[in-house]
C-alpha cells in the first residue's frame, strides 16, 4: 500500500494522509493507491502539507506500517526519547 506523508508547514510536525485530511498518527493513514501524486499536488498547493511524498507501507496489527525503518522512526518519534514518542506501539525494526 502507498501512504502519503510530509510535514505540517507551520509546525513542522510529521503528518499522514487520512483520506480527508492529515493526522499525526500513522495509524490513521489510508492507502492512497494511484492517487498519491494528485492528492499531494492539491494539498501542497493548499499548504496543508509541506514537502510531501509517497511511501510504501504494509498493513500492521494496529493499522498501516511504513516498510522502511526511516519512516517508522518518523512515525514513532526518536527511539531514544520514549518520553517524546508520538506512537509508542510501532515496531521500529520490521519483523
Amino acid at each position: 500500500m502507498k501512504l502519503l506523508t510530509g510535514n505540517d508547514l507551520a509546525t513542522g510536525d510529521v503528518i499522514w494522509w487520512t483520506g480527508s485530511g492529515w493526522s499525526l498518527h500513522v495509524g490513521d493513514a489510508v492507502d492512497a493507491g494511484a492517487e498519491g501524486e494528485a492528492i499531494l499536488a492539491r494539498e501542497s498547493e493548499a499548504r496543508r502539507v509541506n514537502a510531501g511524498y509517497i511511501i510504501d507501507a504494509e498493513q500492521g496489527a494496529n493499522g498501516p506500517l511504513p516498510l522502511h525503518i526511516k519512516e517508522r522512526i518518523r512515525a514513532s518519534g526518536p527511539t531514544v526519547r520514549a518520553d517524546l514518542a508520538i506512537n509508542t506501539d510501532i515496531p521500529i525494526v520490521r519483523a
Partner: protein
Amino acid sequence: MYRYDNYDQAMVDARVEEFRDQARRRLAGEMTEDQFKPLRLMNGLYLQLHAYMLRVAIPYGTLSGPQMRMLGQIARKYDKGYGHFTTRQNIQYNWIKLEDAADILADLASVEMHAIQTSGNCIRNISSDQYAGVAADEVTDPRPWAELLRQWSSFHPEFSYLPRKFKIAVIASAQDRAAMRLHDIGLELVKKDGVIGAKVFAGGGMGRTPMVAPEIRDFVTEDEIIAYVEACLRVYNRYGRRDNKYKARIKILVHELGVEEYRRQVEEEFAHMKTLGIDPPVAELDRIRSYFADPAYESGLSEEVNRSDPDFALWLDRNVVAHKQPGYAIANISLKPVGGIPGDATAEQIELMADLAERYSLDELRVTHAQNIVLPYVRKADLYALWKELDEAGLGAANLDRISDIIACPGLDYCSLANARSIPVAQKIATRFAGNGKEAAIGEMKLKISGCINACGHHHAGHIGILGVDRKGTENYQLLLGGSGAEDCSLGQITGPGFDENGIVDAVERVTDLYLAQRSEGERFLDTYRRLGMAPFKEAIYG
C-alpha cells in the same frame, strides 16, 4: 570575548527582519517550498526527520554566560526542552516551528548570535581550539584570527556560492584539539624567527572521501593570512567541481590537481591578491585582538585542591586540565553521562552551565568538537564547589577522552540523511564499559560514531570509528580502527564485514580486550594499533 560593533548588530538584525518577512510569505502561500528552502537554509533552518531543525552558530565554540542562558531559554520556550551540541561546536534544536523561527532569530540577535551560514555552500562557522587563550602550550591566541576570519567570511559575496560547503579551523598549538587537518582549510599559527604567522593546510575533510589536508604553505606572515586564504578559496571557487556533488569539496580538487599544482596556482593567485591590498589594516586586527586580552587574573591564588572526596578526585584527574595561569584550571563538562545522548543538554542544564560560568569562569564557556562544554577560567579553589553543582545536575561524568566520551551524530533518530541510528549504539557501548569496569584500564580512547557516510560523527578520526550503513533496509555498522583527528592525524581503516547493533558492541569489546592484552607500557590504544597493525585485531574480531 568579541562584542558586536554597530555593523555586526545591524547586519544580524536586518537578516532577522528579512527572514521574518520570508517566513511570513511562505506561510501565507506567497512562496513555494522550492523558493523558500534556500532562504531558510541560509538561516540555518533545515527540515529534518521529525520537524524543522535550527542550527545556531557558536563562533569558534565561544559563548558568554548570557548567550548560553539564551540557548537554554530557547530550548525551553520554542523546543522540547533540550538542545544538541554538535561536532561543529554549534547547537541544534530539533523541534522548531516555522512560525516561531523569526522570533528565535530575534532572541539570538539580542545576545549577538545568529544562524547565518550554518548551511549552504558557503564558509561555515570557523572552528578552533576549545582551550584557546588559556592553553599552556599555545604560541598565541588563535581567537583573534578565528574572529577575523568570521568577519571576513560573513556574507563574503565571492564565496556565498562555492562548489560545496567550506570549513576552516584555526589552532595555535602543536597539540591539535580541533581536528584542524580534517578541515577544508586548516591554519596552525606558529612562530618563526620570533614572528607570528600561519602554516596553511588545504584539502582535508571527512565524508565519503576522507583526506588529511596536506601542507600548502609552511609559513605566511600574519598580515598576509587573509590574502592567502582568499587565494586558496579563489582557486577552489574557479576549478572546484560543480558538476558532481560528491566531487565538489576542495579535497577532491587538491587531490586531482596534485598538491604541487594546487600550490602553484594558489601562489600565483596570492601574488595577485597582494596587489589588491585586501588584508585588513593592522589597526583592525589590533581592535579585534583587544577583545581577547587576558582577563584580570587574580594573583597569589592557591594551587592546592582538596582531593579527599574520591568521586571529585576522579573528575579532577579526568576532566580538569592545566591552565596557563597559576591558580586557575580549565574544567571540562562532559555531556556524555553513561546511557545518555551524546551532546544533548536540557534547558535547565544549559542555564545551570551559564550560571556556573558566571560564578566560576568569568562568564565564559566553550563548546568542543567532541560535544562537551569547557569552563576556561576556573580558580582551583572553586573546583570542588563547581563539581558539586555539576554532579547534582547530572553533569559530573568523569570521562573526558575515555571510551564513554563518545562522539555521536544524531543519526537516524533525528537526521533525514541517516542510514542507521548512532545514539543507541553510543548508549550501549557506554553502558557495556561502565558495567565491565574496563574504561579506566583502557585509558585514552576516542570513539566516534556516524549514522551515514557524511561523517558528522567523525568516525574516520576515531581511534575506534563506527559507521552506520543501510544493508537491505536494516541498520548495519562498520568498524574502523586507527583514526585520529589530533596532531598525529590519520584515517581509520575498516576492519571487515559489518555488524548489527549488538554485534558492534561485542566487536568493540573484543578490540579493546586485545589492546589490554597486547599493549606495551604507556601505550594508548592508538599506539598499540599502530604498532601491531590491523591483522591481530581482525583475528580477534572475526577469528
